[in-house]
């Protein structure tokens, strides 16, 4: 599982720092992600995992350091541009269009991705290729049966799936998932894993989650963040065997998945 096909990273950070006032929430992070890689980012609450994801996706600007996408400096690139360049993400707290149906949710992202969303004069739902793609994405995450139900009326677990479908609609090369299984009973988190396993092989996925079962089964490499810095990085087996990680993170036990700053 550890061999990586290409040696060139698709996403790289160099000495990335972010301060909130005097507090350093991300410190000198050097991180690389390779095409097709399955990576998990773990760490105790407040380790700065979500902040780091926000820096990668462009929601937050770093205080110093660089972010490279396929070797290109994107540190100053806006969130919107980064999405077009292939960085997709989901949110820790579900962020959908509550009154719109599942299909409309996905359609909006498809339309935006394919550059037809600014069109004035064609009826939206007559665009056959886009509609087909939206339906196909819904099918992939197992939501075809609720395509016409408003997002806010879906059970929470299915909203998480819809969130993944929306992110996939943007044809990401890199997919950042912020706690996709948050709020889903552990017994059902395998559904998320099943879907993650059907993702196209060439997409690099970086996931944050507190569900260790999910993390260890999904990831090829695990990065442990502690107080904003990379504590250790390695294969699941290495991480599981690492005494220090046990101490700072696993040893604390019972992290059932709540907000990390």
């Amino acid at each position: 599982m550890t061999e990586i096909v290409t040696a060139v990273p698709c996403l790289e950070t160099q000495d990335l720092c972010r301060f909130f006032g005097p507090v350093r929430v991300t410190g000198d992070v050097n991180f690389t992600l390779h095409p097709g890689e399955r990576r998990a980012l773990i760490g105790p609450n407040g380790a700065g995992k979500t902040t780091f994801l926000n820096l990668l996706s462009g929601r937050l600007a770093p205080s110093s350091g660089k972010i490279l996408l396929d070797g290109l400096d994107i540190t100053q690139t806006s969130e919107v541009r980064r999405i077009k360049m292939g960085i997709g993400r989901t949110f820790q707290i579900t962020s959908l269009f509550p009154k719109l149906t599942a299909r409309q949710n996905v359609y909006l992202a498809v339309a935006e991705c394919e550059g037809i969303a600014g069109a004035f004069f064609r009826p939206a739902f007559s665009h056959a290729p886009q509609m087909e793609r939206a339906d196909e994405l819904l099918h992939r995450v197992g939501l075809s049966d609720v395509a016409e139900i408003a997002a806010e009326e879906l059970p929470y677990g299915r909203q998480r799936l819809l969130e993944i479908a929306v992110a996939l609609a943007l044809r990401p090369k890199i997919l950042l998932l912020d706690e996709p299984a948050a709020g889903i009973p552990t017994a059902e988190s395998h559904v998320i894993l099943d879907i993650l396993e059907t993702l196209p092989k060439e997409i690099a996925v970086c996931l944050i989650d507190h569900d260790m079962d999910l993390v260890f089964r999904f990831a090829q490499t695990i990065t442990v963040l502690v107080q904003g810095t990379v504590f250790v990085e390695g294969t699941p087996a290495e991480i599981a065997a690492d005494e220090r990680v046990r101490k700072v993170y696993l040893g604390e036990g019972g992290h059932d998945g709540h907000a990390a700053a």
Partner: protein
Amino acid sequence: MNQQPASITLPVPVRRRTALTALHAIPWAVALGVYALFPGYEPLATQMFVMILFALSLDLLVGYAGIVTLGHAGLFGTGAYTAGILAAHGFNDPIATALCGMGAAALVGLLFGSCMLRTKGLALLMLSMASAFLLYELANKATGWTGGDDGLQGISFGPVLGLFEFDFRGRTAFFYTLGVLFLAFLFVRTLINSPFGWSLRGIRENDRRMGAIGCPIYQRRLTAYVIAAALAGLAGALQAQATQFVALHVLSFELSGDVLVMLILGGSGHLYGAFLGVPLFMFAQDLLAKQDPTNWQLGQGIILIGMVLFAPGGMMGIGRRLMAAVRRRARP
């Protein structure tokens, strides 16, 4: 959960919404019915058509793009004064001046919108209000152009299409404004059913998420604002042409408030809200203000408070809930 039937193509009930059913003909049939059955009411009906167009343009912002503005009269007034001033200087072809009014309002909308839409919440609300007050003061002081407090009097417009003179009974104005409203309605309907229209709804529902799927939000909202501005300007120009008069009231805060109330009374975000709200508002106004305008003001206040507290969604909202109740009854 993951085991779905292989068929991906589902029935598409969304289609139904865009299809033109018999219901859609009702407002237009009523309009023509008024003409046939109630002669003498053409001027009132004309006034309603103008306000419906105005409210429709506001619906694009409030109902679809989620931009609450308290300065929409600024754009209406820009259109009215543009048409009026042109006519006062001898350029009085109705369609050409209406287009000029549209253009001027779109330009003003672009100018103010490009500033306003960088903000949100209270700042946006206040900027919209300040923009209209700014225009009002400008018009109030530029008496040489606008006639100031006295308004722009004694303007007249040439025949529509060079054929139909504006007549004393207001028949030309009736058909002219109805025709323009119909075209504008078709335009707005196309717009809100387009991918652009859906992306506006997305922004209204969750602008952060919309940003995260790569939507250039500011640009989209500004486009919507300029389109709404052009339509409001068109309504203003029609008003100037139909009444042959432009007063400062067309730029006032009261008018901005009134049109918002008309729209909300009908129901925003429904396309037909304006068609319900405007007549309702104007009939109620006519009824209550007959003895004393104060009664109407009180009525309007109570209606607004009551509606916000007890009937959100306006008439369309009430209708929708009734329909849902009937449907539930009908089911075994």
